[in-house]
């Protein structure tokens, strides 16, 4: 079956250099996907370790351009996972400090830095991008950007890592994609035994993704959800606790005030859901951003951006949680109220 997808802007053939560099991935997602990637413009807001990891993966994939947006400076904490900022860039702007190494990853991608605060960026700024990825922002700020992006038809992903725990929420609005449905066709030969042939049928699907507000309105203490929480582990609860901390204190828990912040976190947890599964031990692993966990979450987020841009395969819908205890990565479907 031939699927009729919008194939504009992908008419230009890849150069020989591109074919060579991207050979191993073209063999996975195909030529058409690679051409789509080449036109994609991506914003990464927040150049913490997670931002660096997503940036790396997106640049390697061969998108058109990546803008790095951050008004913060490089701190000691960044050296736990922010490998794009060199040691000597301590106290200088994080986005600018990341430029040289980001460019070295793939000279074919156009990479720029912007040191203005995210809060001061208005609608026209976001309209330049196909996908906007934001990390380290408050819920209030995430809601504002999500609403701008939904007005513009720009795909939006909010993500964060605390220590070894991480999540993302995908606000992709109406998204069309093609996925291969694998079937086994019986190829019978009259005098021989039955044989199977696998056939993959490209199938188009259209899916609606609710906005970020769906998550903020989601009640994790609802009895219907508690059962799920028990089965999947405390990830979603931990996310709630950490976001509440950020909203209340306008910062994240810090290793510098480890014991005091752990006390505050336990308080938020017990207020939200007494006797919950969320152990003190799990709370002890949420400081800074730990490289291997950032690699997992950053890998997952970048793969989602690639899916969104190439329109191949279903982006996860719509809340992803990485549980560092088990290394499970799972998806919760959060519907709009």
């Amino acid at each position: 079956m031939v699927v009729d997808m919008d194939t504009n802007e992908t008419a230009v053939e890849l150069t020989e250099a591109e074919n060579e560099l991207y050979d191993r991935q073209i063999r996975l997602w195909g030529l058409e996907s690679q051409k789509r990637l080449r036109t994609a413009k991506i914003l990464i807001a927040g150049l913490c370790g997670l931002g660096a990891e997503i940036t790396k993966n997106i640049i390697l994939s061969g998108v058109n351009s990546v803008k790095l947006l951050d008004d913060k400076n490089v701190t000691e904490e960044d050296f736990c996972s922010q490998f794009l900022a060199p040691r000597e860039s301590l106290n200088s702007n994080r986005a600018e400090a990341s430029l040289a190494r980001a460019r070295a990853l793939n000279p074919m991608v156009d990479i720029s830095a912007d040191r203005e605060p995210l809060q001061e960026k208005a609608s026209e700024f976001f309209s330049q991008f196909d996908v906007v990825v934001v990390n380290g922002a408050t819920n209030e700020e995430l809601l504002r950007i999500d609403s701008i992006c939904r007005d513009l038809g720009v795909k939006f992903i909010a993500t964060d890592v605390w220590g070894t725990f991480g999540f993302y929420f995908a606000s992709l609005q109406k998204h069309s994609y093609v996925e291969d449905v694998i079937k086994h066709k019986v190829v019978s030969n009259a005098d021989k035994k039955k044989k199977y042939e696998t056939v993959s049928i490209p199938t188009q699907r259209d899916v609606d993704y609710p906005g970020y507000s769906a998550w903020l309105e989601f009640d994790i203490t609802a009895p219907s959800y508690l059962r799920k929480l028990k089965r999947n582990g405390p990830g979603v609860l931990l996310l709630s606790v950490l976001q509440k901390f950020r909203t209340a204190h306008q910062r994240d828990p810090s290793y510098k005030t480890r014991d005091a912040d752990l006390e505050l976190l336990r308080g938020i947890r017990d207020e939200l859901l007494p006797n919950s599964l969320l152990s003190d031990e799990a709370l002890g692993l949420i400081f800074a951003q730990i490289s291997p966990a950032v690699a997992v979450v950053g890998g997952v987020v970048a793969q989602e951006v690639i899916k969104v841009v190439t329109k191949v395969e279903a982006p996860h819908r719509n809340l992803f949680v990485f549980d560092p205890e088990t290394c499970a990565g799972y998806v919760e479907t959060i519907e709009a109220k």
Partner: protein
Amino acid sequence: MAAAIDGVFPATLQELVKKSKVLVVGAGGIGCEVLKNLVLSGFTDIEIIDLDTIDLSNLNRQFLFHREHVGKSKARVARESALSFNPDAKITAYHDSVTSTDYGVNFFKKFDLVLSALDNRAARNHVNRMCLNADVPLIESGTAGYNGQVELIKRGLTQCYECTPKDKQRSFPGCTIRNTPSEPIHCIVWAKHLFNQLFGESLEDEDISPDAADPDAKEKDGADGDGEPKDDEKENEKGEESKEEKEAKEDTANGNVVRINTRQWAKDCNYDAGKLFNKFFNEDITYLLRMSNLWKTRKAPVPVQWDTLLPEGSSGDQKDVAKQHHKVWSIEECAQVFANSLKELSATFLKLEGDDTLAWDKDDQPAMDFVAACANVRSHIFDIERKSRFEIKSMAGNIIPAIATTNAITAGISVMRAFKVLEAKWEQCKAVYARLRPNARNHFLVPDASLPGPNPNCYVCASDPAITLKIDTKRMHIKELRDEVLVKTLNMLNPDVTVQSTGSILISSEEGETECNEGKLLSELNIVDGVILKCDDFFQNYELSIIISHFDAERDENLFEVVADASQLKPKDEEQKKDTVESKEDEQKTAVKRSANGEGDSKDDGPSTSKRSRPTEVVEEDDDDCLVIEEDEDQADVVVVATDKLSVQSPPKSGAKRKPSEVIEDEDITEILDSSDDEPAGPTKCKRSRLDESSSNPVEVISID
């Protein structure tokens, strides 16, 4: 460097990270990511080993390398790049093979933990054995495309890498390749053999001429018909050929029409494109047509003629055809590419000194062009779908696709597991699988439900390992016993073998000591049914008893088969009677019982390996990061679940509702081959067959058509 900053990690973990010494084996896609995670986490005592150099096609994911590093040592460049992330780390890089004798058990004992990020099974088997010996925990990882996996191997606690059988390489019977191809891969394999016949190291198994002894060509009802061309017909048909060539041909005992020296003949023809083309694609095909029994149930091939494709003087300005990698070339274009690549290859070949030969390499442009063109011409002749050069390269080079994201995720999980290993929280070190699509529980990073213990029948990690070797003792030579069984299949490096009852030395690791035995058949040396051999690989510190079980192999059948558990020995007939459908369904049933991630290996109670000696193997090769990945059984269901959940507005037009009786939506195992060309010092290919207890197929039958 998280561990260098107080308060980031809990204090105990911080200390463990700071003081641990770790080895990273492999600096490829996963290795680069693992090394970055280690230095940033605050590990300061790291060693990394890789024998490979950097290739342009690595740069889409091996992010520690840039364009200016192409051709340099992966281990060394990875070290330099990682040091820029954390100048306080101490990293030792080895540009070397991990199977080299420089890295013995004492080398491995230095480490608190080994993280392996290899791309081939032989090296994995070796590292597995070294870590078992040294009693160092090993975190084993691999990726292929969107799939990744990480597992802990710890002596006495978990399965070892060789506790479960791995899928074998796909192989094809010789007569399928030479006489009756039916899939593009058959023609691609044939084309690679043709390359080797002309320019490469010519192997006996790689004959490309028609096989007159094909059992299919024999008259089935016993009547003496036209199954084989008569000798005089043969002579007639080849009448136009040079005299030398006729002399070079003879019917051998096993019926092969052997060109004693195709290579010499081609050289004598001055590599005339038309002559060579007509021989391979016209005369040989005409010969095949005379084996008329072959074509009673098959579509007969149609020979092609050089002059009709490329009339004299028509060639010229089409040099760019070969550069159109994604286009399916026309048959005329194939002929053109054939001529151009033949010219280039022969020129290079003639410049070689002495007995030097060319090695086929997917990245060598004329070599790849030649195979693509020849495979497509042959496909055209046999009415098989032709493929683009790009697609043929994937198949001929066995390229495993690789992307940055899967490597990042897998390496991340690997180092997350490293923390648990250092903390000795073994129960939390269950294997994890990364998948493209979520399973029925909406997990796509899927931890195993349990930590499977060692397989008591494992021929590597069991306390007194023994295997039964079904072997045709009347046809296998001692040299083959060593090279094919002990080295290639059982992955020993340099074994000593003695006969248990007499103590006499059959194979010695000392060079020259048992050379006189090499050419002898097993039976000649009284190695017959029931004899027990004691094998000892000193370097791997690995001892294995082999119980010989004789069988008479059929034509085109394996000459041997390794069975780890004697109870698996069942009459061959029984297996073959089993219908494919039945066993497929059995597999499906079992699949349901298995854990959520689809890892079914715990069902197996022993590895079984086999090697076909006659059929052709697809020799895998690539530089990528992979191992055998077990497919997720939930995947098929998920497609359906996802369809229901999401507001599907344009349902698939194919509309096929799932009818389990007709459509099997998922295979138990997706076979992903790993590569072997990276470890010249170590053993090479290894073939494993998968067994599935539930299907009562104790040893997998390789389907021969």
